[in-house]
Protein backbone atom coordinates (compact mmCIF):
# COMPACT_ATOMS: atom_id res chain seq x y z
CA UNK A 1 0.00 0.00 0.00
CA UNK A 2 2.71 2.43 1.10
CA UNK A 3 4.83 1.54 -1.90
CA UNK A 4 2.01 2.24 -4.33
CA UNK A 5 1.35 5.63 -2.68
CA UNK A 6 5.04 6.52 -3.00
CA UNK A 7 5.02 5.36 -6.61
CA UNK A 8 1.95 7.42 -7.37
CA UNK A 9 3.51 10.48 -5.78
CA UNK A 10 6.69 9.89 -7.76
CA UNK A 11 4.78 9.58 -11.03
CA UNK A 12 2.78 12.70 -10.18
CA UNK A 13 5.86 14.78 -9.39
CA UNK A 14 7.68 13.50 -12.48
CA UNK A 15 4.77 14.52 -14.69
CA UNK A 16 4.66 17.93 -12.99
CA UNK A 17 8.38 18.35 -13.64
CA UNK A 18 7.98 17.36 -17.28
CA UNK A 19 5.13 19.86 -17.70
CA UNK A 20 7.32 22.58 -16.23
CA UNK A 21 10.15 21.61 -18.56
CA UNK A 22 7.80 21.71 -21.53
CA UNK A 23 6.52 25.13 -20.51
CA UNK A 24 10.06 26.39 -20.00
CA UNK A 25 10.90 25.17 -23.49
CA UNK A 26 7.77 26.87 -24.87
CA UNK A 27 8.77 30.16 -23.26
CA UNK A 28 12.29 29.87 -24.68
CA UNK A 29 10.81 29.37 -28.14
CA UNK A 30 8.53 32.33 -27.48
CA UNK A 31 11.46 34.60 -26.59
CA UNK A 32 13.26 33.53 -29.76
CA UNK A 33 10.16 33.99 -31.90
CA UNK A 34 9.45 37.45 -30.51
CA UNK A 35 13.03 38.51 -31.06
CA UNK A 36 12.57 38.14 -34.79
CA UNK A 37 14.50 34.94 -35.25
CA UNK A 38 13.10 32.31 -37.59
CA UNK A 39 11.52 29.61 -35.46
CA UNK A 40 10.92 26.03 -36.46
CA UNK A 41 7.34 25.52 -35.38
CA UNK A 42 4.54 28.02 -35.25
CA UNK A 43 2.53 26.27 -32.61
CA UNK A 44 3.60 28.61 -29.84
CA UNK A 45 0.18 30.26 -29.59
CA UNK A 46 -3.35 28.88 -29.31
CA UNK A 47 -5.70 29.19 -32.28
CA UNK A 48 -7.79 31.70 -30.25
CA UNK A 49 -4.78 33.91 -29.74
CA UNK A 50 -3.64 33.57 -33.37
CA UNK A 51 -7.10 34.62 -34.58
CA UNK A 52 -6.90 37.84 -32.59
CA UNK A 53 -3.22 38.64 -33.19
CA UNK A 54 -2.38 36.90 -36.49
CA UNK A 55 0.66 39.08 -37.14
CA UNK A 56 2.27 38.02 -33.85
CA UNK A 57 1.56 34.35 -34.40
CA UNK A 58 2.74 34.45 -38.03
CA UNK A 59 6.09 32.81 -38.86
CA UNK A 60 9.14 35.03 -38.62
CA UNK A 61 11.17 35.23 -41.80
CA UNK A 62 14.33 37.03 -40.75
CA UNK A 63 17.28 35.42 -39.02
CA UNK A 64 19.40 38.01 -37.23
CA UNK A 65 21.16 35.41 -35.09
CA UNK A 66 24.03 37.65 -34.03
CA UNK A 67 21.68 40.46 -33.08
CA UNK A 68 19.54 38.07 -31.07
CA UNK A 69 22.55 36.71 -29.20
CA UNK A 70 23.64 40.25 -28.29
CA UNK A 71 20.12 41.17 -27.17
CA UNK A 72 19.82 38.05 -25.08
CA UNK A 73 23.09 38.76 -23.32
CA UNK A 74 21.90 42.26 -22.46
CA UNK A 75 18.64 41.25 -20.82
CA UNK A 76 18.42 38.51 -18.23
CA UNK A 77 15.03 36.88 -18.71
CA UNK A 78 13.55 34.45 -16.20
CA UNK A 79 10.22 32.64 -16.29
CA UNK A 80 8.41 31.92 -13.03
CA UNK A 81 6.00 29.04 -13.67
CA UNK A 82 2.91 28.39 -11.57
CA UNK A 83 0.91 25.24 -12.35
CA UNK A 84 -2.85 25.42 -11.85
CA UNK A 85 -4.10 23.67 -8.73
CA UNK A 86 -7.47 22.87 -10.26
CA UNK A 87 -6.81 22.24 -13.93
CA UNK A 88 -3.85 20.11 -15.04
CA UNK A 89 -3.99 21.69 -18.49
CA UNK A 90 -3.56 25.26 -17.27
CA UNK A 91 -0.46 27.14 -16.07
CA UNK A 92 0.67 30.71 -15.52
CA UNK A 93 4.07 32.21 -16.25
CA UNK A 94 5.42 35.47 -14.94
CA UNK A 95 8.17 37.01 -17.03
CA UNK A 96 11.01 38.58 -15.07
CA UNK A 97 13.31 40.97 -16.92
CA UNK A 98 16.58 41.74 -15.15
CA UNK A 99 14.99 40.86 -11.81
CA UNK A 100 11.96 43.07 -12.42
CA UNK A 101 8.63 41.35 -12.36
CA UNK A 102 6.06 42.39 -14.94
CA UNK A 103 2.55 42.94 -13.58
CA UNK A 104 0.83 40.61 -16.04
CA UNK A 105 1.04 36.84 -16.33
CA UNK A 106 1.08 34.58 -19.37
CA UNK A 107 -1.81 32.14 -19.55
CA UNK A 108 -0.58 28.76 -20.85
CA UNK A 109 -2.97 26.01 -21.92
CA UNK A 110 -2.37 22.42 -22.88
CA UNK A 111 -4.27 21.79 -26.09
CA UNK A 112 -4.15 18.36 -27.73
CA UNK A 113 -1.18 17.42 -25.59
CA UNK A 114 0.81 20.56 -26.37
CA UNK A 115 1.40 23.60 -24.19
CA UNK A 116 0.55 26.87 -25.97
CA UNK A 117 0.32 30.54 -25.06
CA UNK A 118 -3.25 31.82 -24.79
CA UNK A 119 -2.22 35.41 -24.03
CA UNK A 120 -1.85 37.27 -20.77
CA UNK A 121 -3.95 38.38 -17.82
CA UNK A 122 -3.54 41.42 -15.61
CA UNK A 123 -5.33 41.41 -12.26
CA UNK A 124 -4.82 42.18 -8.60
CA UNK A 125 -5.99 41.16 -5.16
Amino acid at each position, binding site marked *: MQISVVLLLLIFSLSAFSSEDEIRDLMER*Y*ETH*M*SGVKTKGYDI*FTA*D*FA*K*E*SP*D*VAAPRIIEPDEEFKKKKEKLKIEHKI*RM*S*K*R*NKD*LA*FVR*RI*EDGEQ*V*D*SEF*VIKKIKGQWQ*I*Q*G*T*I*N*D*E*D
Partner: protein
Amino acid sequence: MKYALWGVLGLLLTTIEASPKEPLIEVLGPYYPRNADASYCRRKTDIVDTIVFHHSQTTSTTSPEEINEMHLERGDASDPWLMIGYHFTINSPYVDSPHYKTYVSRGRPFHIAGSHAGSDAYAKVTPETKELLKAKDSVRCGTETGVVSEADDKFNPDGDAKANYTTVAIVFIGNYFVRNQSNPGGYPLGNERFPTGRAIDAAARLACQLQRDNPRIQYIKWHSFYRATSCPAKVRERIKAIITQTEKYGCKFQ
Protein backbone atom coordinates in the same frame (compact mmCIF):
# COMPACT_ATOMS: atom_id res chain seq x y z
CA MET B 1 -69.28 54.60 -19.77
CA LYS B 2 -67.45 57.94 -20.11
CA TYR B 3 -66.52 57.90 -16.40
CA ALA B 4 -65.37 54.28 -16.66
CA LEU B 5 -63.02 55.20 -19.51
CA TRP B 6 -61.56 58.09 -17.52
CA GLY B 7 -61.14 55.73 -14.59
CA VAL B 8 -59.25 53.19 -16.69
CA LEU B 9 -57.05 55.94 -18.13
CA GLY B 10 -56.31 57.29 -14.65
CA LEU B 11 -55.43 53.82 -13.40
CA LEU B 12 -53.16 53.27 -16.39
CA LEU B 13 -51.32 56.55 -15.81
CA THR B 14 -50.86 55.76 -12.12
CA THR B 15 -49.46 52.34 -13.02
CA ILE B 16 -47.02 53.82 -15.53
CA GLU B 17 -45.81 56.40 -13.00
CA ALA B 18 -45.47 53.84 -10.23
CA SER B 19 -43.67 51.23 -12.33
CA PRO B 20 -39.89 51.20 -11.93
CA LYS B 21 -37.79 52.52 -14.79
CA GLU B 22 -36.77 50.02 -17.43
CA PRO B 23 -33.23 48.72 -16.79
CA LEU B 24 -30.70 50.58 -18.90
CA ILE B 25 -28.82 47.44 -19.83
CA GLU B 26 -29.20 43.70 -19.91
CA VAL B 27 -26.76 42.03 -17.54
CA LEU B 28 -26.11 38.32 -17.99
CA GLY B 29 -25.65 36.16 -14.91
CA PRO B 30 -23.22 33.32 -15.61
CA TYR B 31 -22.72 30.52 -13.07
CA TYR B 32 -19.41 30.82 -11.24
CA PRO B 33 -17.93 28.02 -9.11
CA ARG B 34 -16.44 29.41 -5.89
CA ASN B 35 -13.58 28.41 -3.60
CA ALA B 36 -15.36 26.98 -0.56
CA ASP B 37 -12.35 27.60 1.71
CA ALA B 38 -11.77 31.21 0.71
CA SER B 39 -12.22 34.04 3.16
CA TYR B 40 -14.05 37.06 1.82
CA CYS B 41 -15.68 40.26 3.05
CA ARG B 42 -19.36 41.13 3.02
CA ARG B 43 -20.07 44.84 3.07
CA LYS B 44 -22.98 47.18 3.62
CA THR B 45 -23.63 48.43 0.12
CA ASP B 46 -24.06 52.07 1.16
CA ILE B 47 -20.28 52.34 1.72
CA VAL B 48 -19.74 51.99 -2.05
CA ASP B 49 -19.34 55.37 -3.75
CA THR B 50 -16.93 54.72 -6.67
CA ILE B 51 -16.78 52.66 -9.86
CA VAL B 52 -13.30 51.47 -10.88
CA PHE B 53 -12.53 50.49 -14.47
CA HIS B 54 -9.98 47.85 -15.44
CA HIS B 55 -8.87 46.01 -18.53
CA SER B 56 -8.21 42.27 -18.34
CA GLN B 57 -5.26 42.19 -20.78
CA THR B 58 -6.60 38.84 -21.97
CA THR B 59 -7.85 38.17 -25.52
CA SER B 60 -11.13 40.01 -26.09
CA THR B 61 -12.98 36.72 -26.59
CA THR B 62 -12.18 35.48 -23.07
CA SER B 63 -15.41 34.70 -21.25
CA PRO B 64 -16.23 35.84 -17.70
CA GLU B 65 -16.34 32.16 -16.72
CA GLU B 66 -12.73 31.75 -17.92
CA ILE B 67 -11.68 34.77 -15.86
CA ASN B 68 -13.41 33.18 -12.88
CA GLU B 69 -11.45 29.97 -13.51
CA MET B 70 -8.20 31.94 -13.51
CA HIS B 71 -9.13 33.94 -10.41
CA LEU B 72 -9.90 30.72 -8.52
CA GLU B 73 -6.15 30.12 -8.93
CA ARG B 74 -5.18 33.41 -7.32
CA GLY B 75 -3.92 33.83 -3.77
CA ASP B 76 -2.01 31.14 -1.91
CA ALA B 77 -3.09 27.84 -0.41
CA SER B 78 -3.91 29.46 2.95
CA ASP B 79 -5.76 32.41 1.41
CA PRO B 80 -7.25 31.64 -1.99
CA TRP B 81 -9.55 34.00 -3.88
CA LEU B 82 -13.27 33.36 -3.58
CA MET B 83 -14.17 33.80 -7.26
CA ILE B 84 -13.87 36.33 -10.08
CA GLY B 85 -12.53 39.54 -8.51
CA TYR B 86 -14.59 42.01 -10.60
CA HIS B 87 -18.27 42.81 -10.04
CA PHE B 88 -19.07 43.24 -13.72
CA THR B 89 -17.44 42.37 -17.02
CA ILE B 90 -17.87 43.99 -20.42
CA ASN B 91 -16.88 41.86 -23.38
CA SER B 92 -15.35 44.38 -25.67
CA PRO B 93 -14.28 43.03 -29.07
CA TYR B 94 -12.03 45.36 -31.01
CA VAL B 95 -13.16 47.40 -33.99
CA ASP B 96 -13.42 45.26 -37.16
CA SER B 97 -13.29 42.08 -35.11
CA PRO B 98 -15.38 39.29 -36.62
CA HIS B 99 -16.71 38.60 -33.12
CA TYR B 100 -18.37 41.99 -32.87
CA LYS B 101 -20.62 41.59 -29.90
CA THR B 102 -20.56 43.55 -26.69
CA TYR B 103 -22.22 42.03 -23.67
CA VAL B 104 -22.24 42.72 -19.96
CA SER B 105 -22.11 40.01 -17.29
CA ARG B 106 -22.41 40.02 -13.54
CA GLY B 107 -19.27 38.91 -11.68
CA ARG B 108 -18.84 38.87 -7.92
CA PRO B 109 -22.00 39.87 -6.03
CA PHE B 110 -22.17 43.57 -5.21
CA HIS B 111 -22.38 43.03 -1.44
CA ILE B 112 -19.04 41.18 -1.47
CA ALA B 113 -15.91 43.35 -1.60
CA GLY B 114 -14.00 42.90 -4.86
CA SER B 115 -10.44 41.70 -5.45
CA HIS B 116 -9.25 44.19 -7.99
CA ALA B 117 -7.61 47.40 -6.75
CA GLY B 118 -4.82 45.69 -4.81
CA SER B 119 -5.10 44.60 -1.18
CA ASP B 120 -2.74 47.41 -0.18
CA ALA B 121 -4.56 50.12 -2.17
CA TYR B 122 -6.02 52.87 0.00
CA ALA B 123 -7.43 56.25 -1.02
CA LYS B 124 -9.04 59.36 0.41
CA VAL B 125 -12.83 59.22 0.61
CA THR B 126 -15.56 61.76 1.47
CA PRO B 127 -16.33 62.36 5.18
CA GLU B 128 -19.71 60.67 4.67
CA THR B 129 -18.16 57.50 3.22
CA LYS B 130 -15.58 57.55 6.00
CA GLU B 131 -18.32 57.62 8.66
CA LEU B 132 -20.27 54.83 6.97
CA LEU B 133 -17.14 52.71 6.68
CA LYS B 134 -16.21 53.40 10.32
CA ALA B 135 -19.59 52.12 11.51
CA LYS B 136 -19.61 48.75 13.22
CA ASP B 137 -20.28 45.80 10.91
CA SER B 138 -19.92 47.85 7.72
CA VAL B 139 -17.45 45.18 6.52
CA ARG B 140 -17.32 41.68 7.98
CA CYS B 141 -14.81 39.11 6.82
CA GLY B 142 -14.45 35.37 7.22
CA THR B 143 -15.17 32.07 5.54
CA GLU B 144 -18.51 30.48 4.72
CA THR B 145 -18.35 28.10 7.66
CA GLY B 146 -15.65 29.64 9.87
CA VAL B 147 -15.38 32.66 12.14
CA VAL B 148 -16.66 35.96 10.75
CA SER B 149 -15.45 39.20 12.29
CA GLU B 150 -15.29 42.93 11.69
CA ALA B 151 -12.63 43.89 9.09
CA ASP B 152 -9.56 45.32 10.81
CA ASP B 153 -8.04 46.89 7.69
CA LYS B 154 -10.69 49.43 6.69
CA PHE B 155 -8.25 52.34 7.04
CA ASN B 156 -4.49 52.77 6.76
CA PRO B 157 -2.48 54.80 9.30
CA ASP B 158 -3.13 57.98 7.23
CA GLY B 159 -6.89 57.47 7.54
CA ASP B 160 -7.36 56.52 3.88
CA ALA B 161 -10.02 53.91 3.11
CA LYS B 162 -9.35 50.48 1.63
CA ALA B 163 -10.28 50.78 -2.05
CA ASN B 164 -11.69 47.26 -2.40
CA TYR B 165 -14.32 48.04 0.26
CA THR B 166 -15.66 51.32 -1.12
CA THR B 167 -15.60 50.56 -4.84
CA VAL B 168 -17.31 48.43 -7.45
CA ALA B 169 -15.13 46.94 -10.20
CA ILE B 170 -15.94 46.82 -13.90
CA VAL B 171 -13.51 45.20 -16.33
CA PHE B 172 -13.29 45.65 -20.08
CA ILE B 173 -12.35 42.20 -21.32
CA GLY B 174 -9.61 42.82 -23.85
CA ASN B 175 -6.02 43.91 -24.21
CA TYR B 176 -5.63 47.71 -24.36
CA PHE B 177 -1.91 47.90 -23.64
CA VAL B 178 0.89 48.25 -26.18
CA ARG B 179 2.41 45.05 -27.53
CA ASN B 180 5.76 44.05 -26.12
CA GLN B 181 7.55 40.87 -25.20
CA SER B 182 5.57 40.64 -21.95
CA ASN B 183 2.29 41.41 -23.70
CA PRO B 184 2.15 39.71 -27.12
CA GLY B 185 -1.62 40.27 -27.47
CA GLY B 186 -1.39 44.05 -27.12
CA TYR B 187 -1.80 46.58 -29.91
CA PRO B 188 1.12 47.24 -32.28
CA LEU B 189 3.11 50.39 -31.57
CA GLY B 190 1.54 53.38 -33.33
CA ASN B 191 -1.78 51.60 -33.76
CA GLU B 192 -3.51 52.23 -30.47
CA ARG B 193 -6.54 50.22 -29.50
CA PHE B 194 -9.61 51.60 -27.71
CA PRO B 195 -12.91 50.07 -26.66
CA THR B 196 -15.59 50.38 -29.35
CA GLY B 197 -18.36 52.96 -29.12
CA ARG B 198 -20.76 50.17 -28.26
CA ALA B 199 -18.57 49.06 -25.34
CA ILE B 200 -18.28 52.65 -24.08
CA ASP B 201 -22.06 52.97 -24.23
CA ALA B 202 -22.48 49.67 -22.38
CA ALA B 203 -20.10 50.94 -19.67
CA ALA B 204 -22.07 54.20 -19.37
CA ARG B 205 -25.41 52.40 -19.16
CA LEU B 206 -24.04 50.02 -16.54
CA ALA B 207 -22.52 52.87 -14.51
CA CYS B 208 -25.78 54.79 -14.66
CA GLN B 209 -27.82 51.74 -13.67
CA LEU B 210 -25.50 51.23 -10.70
CA GLN B 211 -26.05 54.85 -9.66
CA ARG B 212 -29.83 54.47 -10.00
CA ASP B 213 -29.73 51.43 -7.75
CA ASN B 214 -27.15 52.90 -5.34
CA PRO B 215 -27.39 56.71 -5.36
CA ARG B 216 -24.23 57.09 -3.26
CA ILE B 217 -22.15 55.96 -6.25
CA GLN B 218 -20.94 59.27 -7.66
CA TYR B 219 -17.35 58.75 -8.74
CA ILE B 220 -15.69 56.97 -11.63
CA LYS B 221 -12.00 56.06 -11.37
CA TRP B 222 -9.56 53.63 -13.00
CA HIS B 223 -7.13 51.08 -11.61
CA SER B 224 -3.97 53.17 -11.98
CA PHE B 225 -5.63 55.90 -9.89
CA TYR B 226 -5.01 53.64 -6.88
CA ARG B 227 -1.56 52.29 -7.61
CA ALA B 228 1.28 52.11 -10.12
CA THR B 229 0.01 49.72 -12.78
CA SER B 230 -0.44 49.69 -16.56
CA CYS B 231 -4.12 48.75 -16.06
CA PRO B 232 -6.51 49.90 -17.56
CA ALA B 233 -4.11 51.02 -20.33
CA LYS B 234 -5.94 52.85 -23.17
CA VAL B 235 -9.32 52.48 -21.42
CA ARG B 236 -8.03 55.27 -19.14
CA GLU B 237 -8.36 57.70 -22.07
CA ARG B 238 -12.05 56.85 -22.48
CA ILE B 239 -13.12 57.47 -18.86
CA LYS B 240 -14.19 61.02 -19.68
CA ALA B 241 -16.25 59.73 -22.63
CA ILE B 242 -17.97 57.21 -20.33
CA ILE B 243 -18.79 59.97 -17.81
CA THR B 244 -20.18 62.20 -20.59
CA GLN B 245 -22.22 59.32 -21.98
CA THR B 246 -23.84 58.64 -18.57
CA GLU B 247 -25.39 62.13 -18.73
CA LYS B 248 -27.43 60.93 -21.70
CA TYR B 249 -29.12 58.50 -19.33
CA GLY B 250 -29.73 61.12 -16.65
CA CYS B 251 -26.75 60.34 -14.41
CA LYS B 252 -23.99 62.51 -13.06
CA PHE B 253 -20.51 61.35 -12.10
CA GLN B 254 -17.30 63.04 -11.05
